[in-house]
């Protein structure tokens, strides 16, 4: 693809742990992507609005507070409700592996846990973009 991948890095919920989100944002940028970072405390509505407004190809969310099963599916549901079906959604953070299947069934394409090399996430995104 000619144009740069546009990616929204988002922190849903009240969780303040943003080291991982910021490191990923920088890694995406260093890899040549155009990165929009939402900052902390975003509601699913705000994230979806930003994703549409910024016309991103990817939404990458990070959460370490345990609220992932509630917040990630809200984002994918709202995207679907807005008729957005070509945005790749991925997640990361402290998320028990037992929850991966549930989140995938809700439209989160992959979850990247602690210790994942940034390149693994980047490679996944490049290989699984919905918009070509």
């Amino acid at each position, binding site marked *: 693809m000619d144009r740069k991948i546009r990616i929204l*890095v988002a922190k849903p*919920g*009240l*969780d*303040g*742990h*943003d*080291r991982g*989100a*910021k*490191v990923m*944002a*920088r*890694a995406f940028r260093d890899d040549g992507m155009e*990165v929009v*970072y*939402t*900052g*902390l*405390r975003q*509601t699913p509505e705000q994230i979806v609005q930003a994703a549409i407004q910024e016309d991103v190809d990817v939404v990458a969310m990070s959460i370490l*507070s*345990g*609220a992932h*099963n*509630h*917040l990630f599916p809200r984002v994918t549901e709202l995207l679907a409700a807005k008729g957005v079906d070509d945005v790749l959604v991925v997640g990361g953070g*402290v998320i*028990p*592996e*037992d929850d991966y299947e549930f989140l995938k069934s809700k439209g989160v394409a992959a979850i990247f*846990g*602690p*210790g994942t*090399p*940034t*390149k693994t996430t980047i490679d996944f995104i490049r290989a699984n973009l919905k918009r070509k």
Partner: protein
Amino acid sequence: MSDIESLRKAVEAWKAGVAKSAAKFPERRASFVTGSGAPIESLYTPLSLEGRDLAADLGLPGEYPYTRGVQSTMYRGRLWTMRQYAGFSNAEESNKRYKFLLEQGTTGLSIAFDLPTQIGYDSDHALSQGEVGKVGVAIDSLADMEVLFDGIPLDKVSTSMTINAPAAVLLAMYIAVAEKQGVGADKLNGTIQNDILKEYVARGTYIFPPGPSMRLITDIFAYCSKSVPNWNTISISGYHIREAGSTASQEVAFTLADGIAYVEAAVKAGLGVDDFAPRLSFFFNAHNDLFEEVAKYRAARRIWARLMRERFGAKSPKSWMLRFHTQTGGSTLTAQQPDNNVVRVAIQTLAAVLGGTQSLHTNSRDEALALPTEESVRIALRTQQIVAYESGAAETPDPLAGSYYVESLTNRVEEEALAYLRRIDELGGAVKAIEQGYVQQEIQDAAYRYQMEVEKGERVVVGLNKFQIQEPKPKGLLRVDPSVGEAQVKRLHALKAKRDNAAVKAALADLETAAKGDANLMPPILAAVKAYATEGEICDVLRGVFGEYRPGSTF
């Protein structure tokens, strides 16, 4: 030839010999660095400390500048407080966990609140959905706090509460619960974190902008100096700064810069420095580089003592002493081969103890995966007890003093931290430096550098980028029952139906008036709490008057 000259010659000869053999048998790496990336020389000798006045730099334990510790006998007198941060689900469940910890020999409580409580939202707020009871206990009103401390005599335990933006509200609830137990506020021991500046840069649970936040903090200082004299009114925290990715020197520098800002704000509010400074406490991290961490604590004590005496003219030795809590480093734990984390925590425990901590939380091995199970918490506590009773590290104060290496590292951390403090002063102090994003940028740069070093294999993390194995999915992780949120909301609504709502309204109106003026906010907050106004209602009044902090979002 003087002793030092002959030593210099001997060391030169030694280095020449080493260089020669290195040509044949090279060292393991081209360069050696500390956990924070500071260079490590091939040898440390008395020459490394040349030009320093050791007597003035170190003092004796319990003496200025407290490099060797704040008490003269340190752990020979009394061991550090073993304080495990805990709390989840609702007040009943957390109360059970606290009683379990007390039975297991923990000597102080440390309360973890859920995120809605930390950000001043009731459990039924839209933003609270999915977060109630997750990372800590949900507290909406005094009624929850009464359950939380049921059967725990508040004159017998010391309680640390990790609460920042709404610290005044939770402290007021604690005072009110104690009163119901027949315990006067003057008998209470404990700490509120109450450190808003690091929330802006590293932890994220801010509510109000810096100005009114600093006022709330100085109001607490003033109130407690008269009414809750044994309370630690703030825990100025480097822990989260380090977790966010800073180096050891940055941890010291940014923490002490925040400390300076609080002292300046309190002095500006008319408080005498020796009236509040003895109740300031600190909170640091413990990472894996044992010697650098020990040096960090020693350097922090020395810098703070000199700052308080020389810059702020404090006369009381208690104002000079940097007393601190330590927690082992959450970000050093791996999700891979999680049992290895027990070993990391043991090293970090040793660092905190050799560095003279006043209290310690040891992390559990499974924290990179989920909230810790009871078994993991027990191992973490036992780690402290093994260091306390079996390692010998607690038997004499500051056992590493005089080590050429540790003293050199201490000097190095001090120099680097002082350079940062000068830079922050130039920017107009910590509040300004944070508003300009300077502190955040420095931390983010260090975090990214670290990540890249790990990914390139320049930094080995056992089980993560070396010595990996195929692992089965971890089992037996703790999960918070999702029905906790609904139950908590029901409880909140029941409270609102049965309390005297006219009294609540009147108390909140009084609070609003006080917030618009410049009266101390603790008395009206205490009155509102006692009327069973909820935390969210109280914070909403203050949001209305103070506004909310809206950060920039750089990376």
